[in-house]
């Protein structure tokens, strides 16, 4: 490091390498991403956004919502599961013997102890989980072999993690979820809850409008600031509320003769929030929707 040029060269190579790795390479890998097909379906993901939702994203950006809300769900575990739901007429002991006979061939032989141990104290009640683990081929093989025997099984991919247990998501967030976001606002602080699935958790537009106007009228102890500047306080016409006016509980309602009407921005923002429904199983984030498994 005797000359200015050598310092320049070292810094240039160092930063250039990281530019190449963390800017150029991701651009090559993800920069031309297209819609993907939803697992076990012909629908594509993410769905095209409607106009008011697209405008709502800009209200989300302009209001700085990203300061307190993330839009990324993390998943800590995933399991392939097969559950026996119906034995038909077979007695439980026969089923156990049959299952034991299946355990000779791969891939089942590797996990035969685990599967049989699950049934050690089994008294024939269904449903019972036969296998739950990383290996999808075990589940596929078991389902394949049990089908001709006439018993019914249900297979599924179960996702788990604190975020999912809170109901903030059905699966982890993946790159494909943000294809149409401009700007992409993942957020890095959860002063408020994650919003990836808010459209399913709170599907009512009017709930969102009231929540934006007076958060504490719906969520007790909420720390969210009220966004009253997105609403218009105006006089009622002929003493009657307009159809658009918010229906507020008395302690949050404006003075008599006045009404609270959402502006276009508030409506767009609410439409955007309701549109946030990261609920599609994808190749890189598979899961079996709970409703289908039951």
């Amino acid at each position: 490091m005797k000359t200015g040029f050598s310092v320049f060269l070292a810094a240039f190579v160092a930063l250039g390498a990281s530019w190449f790795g963390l800017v150029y390479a991701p651009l090559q890998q993800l920069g031309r991403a297209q819609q993907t097909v939803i697992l076990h379906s012909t629908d594509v993901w993410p769905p095209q956004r409607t106009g008011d939702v697209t405008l709502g994203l800009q209200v989300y950006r302009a209001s700085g919502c990203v300061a307190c809300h993330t839009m990324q769900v993390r998943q800590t575990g995933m399991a392939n599961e097969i559950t026996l739901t119906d034995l038909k007429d077979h007695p439980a002991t026969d089923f156990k013997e049959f299952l034991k006979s299946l355990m000779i061939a791969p891939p089942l032989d590797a996990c035969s102890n685990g599967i049989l141990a699950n049934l050690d104290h089994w008294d024939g009640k269904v449903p019972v989980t036969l296998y739950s683990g990383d290996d999808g081929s075990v589940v596929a093989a078991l389902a394949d072999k049990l089908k001709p025997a006439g018993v019914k099984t249900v297979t599924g991919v179960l996702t788990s993690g604190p975020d999912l247990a809170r109901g903030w998501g059905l699966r982890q967030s993946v790159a494909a979820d943000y294809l149409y976001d401009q700007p992409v606002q993942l957020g890095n602080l959860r002063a408020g809850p994650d919003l990836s699935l808010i459209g399913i958790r709170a599907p009512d537009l009017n709930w969102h409008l009231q929540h934006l106007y007076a958060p504490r009228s719906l969520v007790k102890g909420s720390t969210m600031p009220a966004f009253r500047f997105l609403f218009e306080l105006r006089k009622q016409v002929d003493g009657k509320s307009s159809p658009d006016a918010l229906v507020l509980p008395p302690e949050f309602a404006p003075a008599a003769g006045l009404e609270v009407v959402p502006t276009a921005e508030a409506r767009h923002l609410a439409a955007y929030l309701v549109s946030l429904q990261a609920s599609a199983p994808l190749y890189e984030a598979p899961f079996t929707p709970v409703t289908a498994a039951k």
Partner: protein
Amino acid sequence: MNQSGNNTASANEIDASCRVPLLALFGGAALWLVLGLALGFAAAMSFHAPDLFAACSCLTYGHAQAAANDLLLYGFTLPAALGVVLWIFARLSQAPLALPIVPIVAANLWHLGVLIGTVAILMGDSTGHAWLEYPRESAVLLFAAFLLIAVSAVATMGFRSNRDLYPSHWFLFAALLWFAWTYSTANLFLLSAHPPRGVVQAIIGWWFANNILFVGLALLGIGIAFYFLPKFSGRPLPGTDYVLLAFLTLVFFGAWCGVPQGAPVPAWLPAVSAFAAMLSLLPVLAVTIVVWNIGRGAGVKCFGGPLCFIKFGILSFVATGFLYLISSCPSASRVLDFTWFGFGLSQWQLLGFMGMILFGAIYEILPRIMHRDLPFPRLTQASYFCFGIGVLVYVLPLMIGGVVQGIKLGDPSVPFADVGALVLLFIRASSLGQIGLLLGALCLLLNVLVLTAQWKLGLLKIVIAAVKAPLSASAGAPGSTSAGSPLSTSGEVKS
């Protein structure tokens, strides 16, 4: 500094050449710091009274906090650091500042850019990318101003009389390249008419934030500290081996950190970042060893003087460096991500590390470039204690609260509202620290403003004397007759 030759300028000449550019940079920076801290305080008020700014869109949390963050980074840290870089380069070169008019223009462009950006954020025109909230016009101004200052700085470095480079040169020169490259890349990609599709935007944002807040600030802060620490403690840098190791590992490994673990991106990106974070412990360790060797047994007392600021700053670098890197390893990030920990850490980096080092440097440089003492020398100590205690009272509750929040969020049986209520106590406690910070920043602002006012008053007196001179004295003196007021001020300014 005891070389003498025709090329070397005296320390007085060098300091005088830096006077106006540095005043412009420092004055604006001090003002933005006070404003940024005030906006941060206003934002935190949302956690005391959530309906306080319900009808005022300007000061809603999302606006005020983003504007405050950017004011701390672009308003205070970068212009103040660039001013210190100019002075250090001039001193190390033993030459007056090259092209002194350029940084004066640049400083004003820079402050204009910050003003436009701040107003835009408060009006809801933020770009939505963390640390890059300023809109395009403001980013262009900042970048142009930066290039102008960098030209002057590099030219000054080029005119050095001693061709050998001092370690501070490496760090500060690399920092100039760092800002130019990362800021232009991030803005060109994210604020262009055709930004990259999807999550690549977030990846570029993380790359930028890491390279500014971690590597960029580290280069600037360490470069400045390695200039002042040996001077203040009267001991040379203990060997350049560790310093060189710190520099090379910082630029080569530090630049790859930043992608959070578990981010919704291809898995190789967080993996690379976690590995780089582990390797980046090397520069932090090397800096710790160097600082330990300078400080050990030096026995120099500082009671709230510039040395205290620099010491506090470099210790903050070591602490924040370790915490930053540890929090990027997968097991820690599972708890700490999405909590107040990261927010507290970045505030500590900006205020406790860079802020303190810049305070020390400014208090040291100001009397030298102005050739007069600070108007309120006692306020130096006051600002040290207010700002130092303020930083710790501000960030420590946030970071501890963040750990608590992370543990509680990881347990789904704890309702989210309960987590929020628990964390609220920590956030409210941290507001006390913001008051301390604000007081400390006001002390700096007062010193800088009064010093500037005194100097301008002095100029005015000279001008008035020059205007009056031909009337009272004999009209035969040819030089004094042409001394009209605007010309003579600019002449005075350049000297």
